[in-house]
């Protein structure tokens, strides 16, 4: 299977701290892959590298056959890598619809004069964008909140809206940073179904950072484990479950093994 995104030998250094050390990570087309690891393992840092927020100190990122390591964040978003945030970062005082329209910014064309004069072309573009936004909102299950301010939505709906906003970028790769944090088992299940539906219906690959192992095991085709910035394991859920290094990283060494 072809990869839509390849991160090759990525290292990130903050001063003396090596936050990510020589990590290689591929995202195959239309796949769901997960990145797990204990707190401080460098997962979110790795996400920030993929989305252009941090520049890696070594390594390169290839997207759709082109190197994108040096592109600014908005360009990376424009060409199709969208993300959500660990702590929700919606535009709270904008409506759900406006949140999505902001994400469509790079795909819309109206300039200052066209907006001031409200040319037929600009009006058509706005109408189409609004229709598309509504479609995505419906798809994400927050269609009834089109004109509600994002900050007024419930926690679960805000999470869904954030995914909808990322989808409005029309991405090929969707990076979700702890999407089920704070959800109960039932809400998580709804979310799992949603991710599966997303990948099934759209040409999109999903990469998750997740702490909820139930979600990770249920949804991932491949899991990568980071510990202290290094990749310590990669494989199917079953393989990861029984990998001794992973168990060690999460639970510490068993007593018998200590000397």
């Amino acid at each position, binding site marked *: 299977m072809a990869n839509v995104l390849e991160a090759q030998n990525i290292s990130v250094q903050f001063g003396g701290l090596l936050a990510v050390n020589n990590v290689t990570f591929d995202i195959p087309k239309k796949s769901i892959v997960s990145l797990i690891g204990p707190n401080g393992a460098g997962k979110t840092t790795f996400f920030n590298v993929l989305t252009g927020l941090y520049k890696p100190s070594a390594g390169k990122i290839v997207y759709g056959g082109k190197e994108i390591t040096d592109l600014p964040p*908005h360009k990376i978003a424009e060409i199709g890598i969208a993300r959500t945030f660990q702590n929700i970062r919606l535009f709270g005082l904008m409506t759900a619809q*406006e949140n999505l329209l902001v994400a469509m*910014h*790079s795909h819309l064309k109206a300039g200052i004069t066209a907006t001031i004069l409200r040319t037929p072309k600009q009006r058509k573009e706005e109408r189409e964008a609004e229709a598309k936004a509504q479609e995505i909102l419906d798809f994400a299950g927050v269609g009834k909140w089109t004109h509600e301010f994002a900050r007024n939505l419930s926690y679960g709906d805000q999470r869904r809206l954030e995914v909808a906003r990322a989808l409005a*970028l029309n991405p090929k790769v969707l990076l979700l940073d702890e999407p089920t944090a704070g959800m109960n088992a039932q809400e998580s299940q709804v979310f799992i179904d949603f991710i599966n539906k997303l990948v099934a219906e759209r040409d999109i690959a999903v990469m998750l950072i997740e702490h909820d192992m139930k979600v990770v095991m249920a949804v991932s085709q491949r899991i990568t484990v980071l510990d202290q910035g290094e990749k310590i394991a990669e494989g199917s859920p079953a393989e990861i479950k029984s990998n001794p290094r992973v168990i060690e990283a999460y639970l510490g060494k068993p007593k018998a093994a200590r000397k």
Partner: protein
Amino acid sequence: MAKASVANNVTRSNRKWIIGYSITGFILFITYQFLIPWEGLPLGIYDAVYRWMPPTAINESLVYVIMALGLNIVVGYAGLLDLGYVAFWAIGGYTAGWFMSEFFYFLNINFFGSVPAEAPGIHINFWMVLIIGGFICALFGVLIGAPTLRLKSDYLALVTLGFGEIIPQVFFNGENFFGFNISNGTKGIVGVDSIPVGVKDLGPFDFGWKLLIFLLLAAVMVFVSLRLRKGRLGRAWLAIREDELAASMMGVPLMRTKLAAYAVGAFAGGLGGVAFATHVNGVYAERFNFTISIFLLAMVVLGGMGNVWGVILGAFILSWVNGNGLSAFGQLYNEQFGTEVDFASFTFLLFGLVLILMMLFKREGLLPESRLKLMLHEGELDDEDASASKKKVGK
């Protein structure tokens, strides 16, 4: 349905304001153009108007309205603190000085100007100078913005403060700018061309007609503000104001979007500068000082950042207090109580007090932005939208 209507108020355009604005403007115009000069007017009313709101004061207020609306785009919409806005006022003013007076007496250029063709100097038509001034300011906005907008909040404010000092100083000492006289220095450029409006030319004392022109310019700024706010660019500004990082992650180019805010804001500064030059019939370097920047910022904050109507109200109140209101009140007070308190000297004390009180008790401003207001009054239907939806059902 109800939900949609509430939010329509936020996201849809509402052109009703044009009617209200036109009526208010028309009444003001009639009052100052015909009623005040009318001989049959009781002397008491005439005196009161000249004491509390003389024609010069209302025109000056309108110039402040134009400027404040421009600053509102930078500060209120895009959330970029700009403490040097006076620079654009100065550049706009000198554009008028250069292209609408005898300043360049050794040249003889006349392009639809309002003076005889043989008059020395550059004389370009006022309406064109307005646009030229706007574009020159927008250009300077981009030039100043390009290196500074990479900075965040406080640092940006400090650098804009610097530019707001530098540019007026350049004009202040502009008698010898690398060998050229660009501003006449402290003497200023005295006398700018009148405003041609087809049937007649408006000189410095045609207050009523100039009131109408300034009202028109302010209306253009309101229109532009409202339109931009609802479009692609306005949404991007708002998103940057809310969360810069998230905005860039959603494909909004930060630099370009911020520069656009700077350019549009500066354009308004240019309009205001040209308008002010015709209002005071000249360009005087000492008028463009730091307090103006603060003053304009205070208008935006007092009125309600991001809401054009709030900003207009703020601009009117502050420029009135500063120009006429406080001294007129002082005069009244002194007459009543036989004292000799110089009220005008307390202007900035009063402003400081008002700003402190506002920050303590009404942080969002007198007329807060509709977003904030809507949050406080959710569920109330906007009349127009309610009737509009009824109509649709009826059809």
